[in-house]
């Protein structure tokens, strides 16, 4: 069937470079989520894949066929537009069936596909309305419906759930995942929602300023981010970074000095480490633990609270590690009653530490659980 390969895709608007040579190989049937900061070129990339925007340079392959010059309709792609692009003069039903009528399907087949999609997206009562009579979320669901009633080789979704409420989002997410499983279609999905990205993706591609920063399985990105950007981008709240410098280097352990934390032993390869180099130490907010009792695995830090936000059963605590003025967030899986000026003792596990080169921002290589080494490519 149809994998999707991008080879050195470059895009400029006038002299504005938007994409700087993207290489991406999506396997057939894979679910790839594209994430990146607002304006980094995600929508542009989708539009290029769809053939709506000419590339300035580079090839796009679907399966083994070079489709770079092909018309959008010949690529066998369905797309959900970030801006919906609903036909304003057609009812919801007509919006859904319009694309189907290009195929030689019977009226019944079309009807059943439409009602199926409508049911799945909970827009059955709206079928006879026009887009202007719909709420934002309803419009978005119609836009999704229009893509899924067809049966393309490749789906492109541009933030398809951004206007849905949590429950509906979870449900629709599930439906899309199931659709993906059933059809085995290749999907490229843009989202800003971390949970969406982590739970739906086979692999995640992180885009930043028109460059592909990392492309890998969700947990891989989470646990072995290639560089500081990815580390900061994946995971919410953001990873905390502390400046430090290397004090000692061993084969699989690097000792770093960080204000307030003292000497820290990070379990990373010393291959590229040079004593005296500046580094950034990364600790995820969830890796600050309130320990029932002290433990060997943990290093204790004293934390001065500025303020705390409680979200039901979770608590975000903002403040600094004593002796270090880097703003820090800790994310606790419980409703913890803390107040400003409190000082708490957190345990942190050196095994969870991330270490980045000060200048390039690249991660230090690390040994996976299975013993293999993961080393980020040089930029």
């Amino acid at each position, binding site marked *: *069937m*149809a994998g999707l390969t991008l080879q050195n895709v470059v895009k400029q608007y006038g002299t504005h470079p938007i994409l700087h040579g993207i290489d991406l190989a999506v396997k057939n049937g894979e679910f790839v989520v594209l994430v990146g900061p607002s304006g980094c070129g995600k929508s542009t990339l989708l539009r290029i894949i769809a053939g709506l925007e000419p590339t300035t340079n580079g090839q796009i392959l679907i399966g083994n066929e070079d489709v770079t010059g*092909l*018309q959008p*309709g*010949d690529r*066998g792609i369905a797309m959900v537009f970030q801006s919906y692009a609903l036909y304003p003069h057609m009812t919801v039903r007509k919006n859904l069936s319009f694309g189907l009528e290009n*195929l030689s*399907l019977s009226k019944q*087949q079309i009807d*059943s*596909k439409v009602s*199926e*999609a409508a049911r*799945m997206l909970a827009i059955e009562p709206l079928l006879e309305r026009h887009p202007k009579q719909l709420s934002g979320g309803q419009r978005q669901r119609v836009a999704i419906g229009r893509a*899924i*009633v067809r*049966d*393309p*080789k490749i789906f492109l979704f541009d933030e398809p759930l951004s206007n849905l409420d949590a429950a509906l989002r979870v449900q629709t997410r599930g439906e899309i995942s*199931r*659709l993906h499983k*059933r*059809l085995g279609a290749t999907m490229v999905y843009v989202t800003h929602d971390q949970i969406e990205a982590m739970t739906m993706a086979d692999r995640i591609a992180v885009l930043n300023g028109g460059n592909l920063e990392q492309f890998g399985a969700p947990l891989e990105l989470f646990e072995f981010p290639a560089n500081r950007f990815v580390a900061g981008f994946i995971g919410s709240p953001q990873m905390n970074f502390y400046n430090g410098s290397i004090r000692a280097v061993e084969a699989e352990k690097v000792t770093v000095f960080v204000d307030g934390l003292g000497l820290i032993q990070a379990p990373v390869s010393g291959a590229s480490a040079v004593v005296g180099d500046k580094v950034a130490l990364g600790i995820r907010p969830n890796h600050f633990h309130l320990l029932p009792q002290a433990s060997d695995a943990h290093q204790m830090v004293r934390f001065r609270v500025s303020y705390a936000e409680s979200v039901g059963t979770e608590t975000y605590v903002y403040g600094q590690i004593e002796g270090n003025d880097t703003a820090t967030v800790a994310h606790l899986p419980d409703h913890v009653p803390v107040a400003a000026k409190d000082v708490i003792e957190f345990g942190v596990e050196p095994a969870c530490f991330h270490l980045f080169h000060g200048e390039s921002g690249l991660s230090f290589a690390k040994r996976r659980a299975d013993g293999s080494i993961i080393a980020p490519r040089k930029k």
Partner: protein
Amino acid sequence: MTELVAPITRTMTAARPPSSRRLGDIRRKVWPYFLMLPTMGLIVAFTLYPLVQGLYMSLFKRGVVVLPQARQTLPQYVGLDNFVSLIDNADFRISLLKTVIFVVVAVPLNVVLSLALAVLLQPQTKLFAFARTVVFFPSMISLLIIGITWRWLFGLNNGLVNYVLSLASIAPVPWLEQDTMAQIAVVVAWIWWQAGVNMMIFLSGLTAISPDYYEAASIDGTSKWRQFTHITLPLLRPTMAVVVVLSSIEAFKVYELVVSLTGGGPGKATVYLIQTIYDTAFQLPMQAGIAAAQSAVLFVVLMVLAIVQLRLARSKA
């Protein structure tokens, strides 16, 4: 989920042979030309080709019709003499000047007025629909009758307007019998006739503007006037270009109305360019070449005018 996806169609899309794609590609490239074809065909046949023939006439001394049987009607090649002769052709010069003045006066008035009408009559109620019909009504009447009607209304001795004035003991006004008044009368009647068309064009432009923008502006406390000048007008710029270009060209071509309203009078006070060209070609012997040269000048003037206006519209947008 049941049959959300029919497997048959899958294979269909996948199995389409590449040759049909190339065919589709060609079809797509040809498509815009196909769309242009009927219009271009008709325009070439009924306007451009005759136009070229007509303009070619400007190089000859000849009448409208050339008869092989009659030697005196055969065209004589005179090069650019006809154009040179225009320089001291008072009729042409004067009517060209008058036409330009007419355009400069009538078009802006017309555009402003019809835009005002469009904005005034935009609401969707029955009353306003009726009012729009009324304003468009003059455009539904043939120019001949428009001219005759206004001529009658404006009559110095038997006109309704002067009669009404006389009831108020106001001396009769020579609407059509005095040069400037007659020129004003033409402007009035022309605008009265054209305003409806332009209003409709403006209305179709106005309805294309999303109400969102007005909502956003009204929340900011933007005054209606500022909404009009800063949102309506700029978003209406393409429509404005249409109206300005079309009505300037229309104004340059003013003819039928004048013929039936003033007949070009008093004297020659309202003889505009087309009438001059027409009379030169059809009323005077062997002057068709000169008329063609006049047409060529008109054509160039209009072309420059249109291009300049479109440029202006685009550069600001």
